[in-house]
């Protein structure tokens, strides 16, 4: 989906940094947020791809309200989809924690998705031959999906070169929506900065690891 998460190349976010070497959690609640997200897929009967898609679906203003905000809301969204929890419950509990005597809404009815999982993690083995080879020129297709995808918008319709074959893996675009693992070949594709950002761009090379269905032979 063309969501707020797909920030590659966007302008207007200002300066980067500062670099900091602080602890992973600046406050105890951040640690709790991390664990909720880390366990949310298990609780919701989903997977990592669905969690990423949950974060992508957090409304833009909430997405930009901090990392742990989008992480927690993405996890909650995924748990809502599985009938584990509702926003009304969270709001009511928050109010009660703040000392207000509000009624607690009922628990929803769980309805976890069903998808066959063929192994641990995401690396798989695909029997079909690779469509592309190292050194081959490829174009990222003119993709338009309303669902989850790992092809960032800034490489769509751009041409690059296959520089390595990556391990076959579960196809996020399918697994995030519980349509099956549908494992795919994956390639490292290298782009020249001027192909992406025009002739005046800083000269550099950029690589992404792209699944086979995103790619087509360069014309």
């Amino acid at each position: 989906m063309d969501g707020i998460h797909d920030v590659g190349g966007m302008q207007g976010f200002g300066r980067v940094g500062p670099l900091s070497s602080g602890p992973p959690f600046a406050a105890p609640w951040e640690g709790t947020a991390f664990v909720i997200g880390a366990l949310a897929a298990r609780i919701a009967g989903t997977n990592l791809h669905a969690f990423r898609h949950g974060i992508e679906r957090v409304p833009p203003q909430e997405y930009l309200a901090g990392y742990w905000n989008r992480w927690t809301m993405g996890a909650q969204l995924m748990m809502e989809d599985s009938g584990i929890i509702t926003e009304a419950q969270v709001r009511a509990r928050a109010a009660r924690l703040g000392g207000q005597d509000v009624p607690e809404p009922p628990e929803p009815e769980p309805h976890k998705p069903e998808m066959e999982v063929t192994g641990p993690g995401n690396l798989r083995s695909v029997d079909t031959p690779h469509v592309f080879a190292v050194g081959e020129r490829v174009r990222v297709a003119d993709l338009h999906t309303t669902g989850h995808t790992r092809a960032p918008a800034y490489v769509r319709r751009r041409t690059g070169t296959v520089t390595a074959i990556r391990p076959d893996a579960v196809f996020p675009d399918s697994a995030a929506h519980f349509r099956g693992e549908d494992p795919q070949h994956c390639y490292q594709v290298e782009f020249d900065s001027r192909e992406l950002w025009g002739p005046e761009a800083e000269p550099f090379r950029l690589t992404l690891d792209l699944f086979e269905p995103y790619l087509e032979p360069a014309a």
Partner: protein
Amino acid sequence: MTTSREHLDTALRVEALASLLIERGLIDEETVGKFVTTYEQSVGPMNGAKVVAKAWTDPEYRARLLADGTAAIAELEFSGPQGEHIIVVENTATVHHVVVCTLCSCYPWPVLGLPPSWYKDPAYRSRVVREPRQVLREFGLDLGDEVEIRVHDSSSEVRYMVLPERPAGTGDASEEELAALVTRDAMVGVAKVAAP
């Protein structure tokens, strides 16, 4: 999530959500504590620093690390979530690699732990794929024009770790002393390792 559009304070949302999940036995305090301790104490950039120091002092290990990062890293018993397939890229006097995840904040947890704030920030994610030299300059790393920049956007389950250049003047340093010099920032590629 359509019940209310008013922003709920993040810490309060986390507390409310945790309280509901704990009450129903879906998470428990002990598990939460274990996770937090793991990423505060055992899984962090000190792991990657050991990998780098070993590569600097053991040429055969360095070769294995660059050929198969995941396996060489596992030799030091670092593996786990977000580390299924780790590619190690080597920075030299003429080639500088830098790592990002524009779509979320993918990061090689087993060697670097959880990502720092700047890595997750839209400013870094949006800009380093478009003007990396300027971004590195803002971080305090001014690379000469002769240095070629390669940016890696972590768009699949492949994770990247940078093997930084060994700083000058460390010829006599032990592996342990070297590891103490290696920073998280250098292993993402936004800094160099400073000489002691």
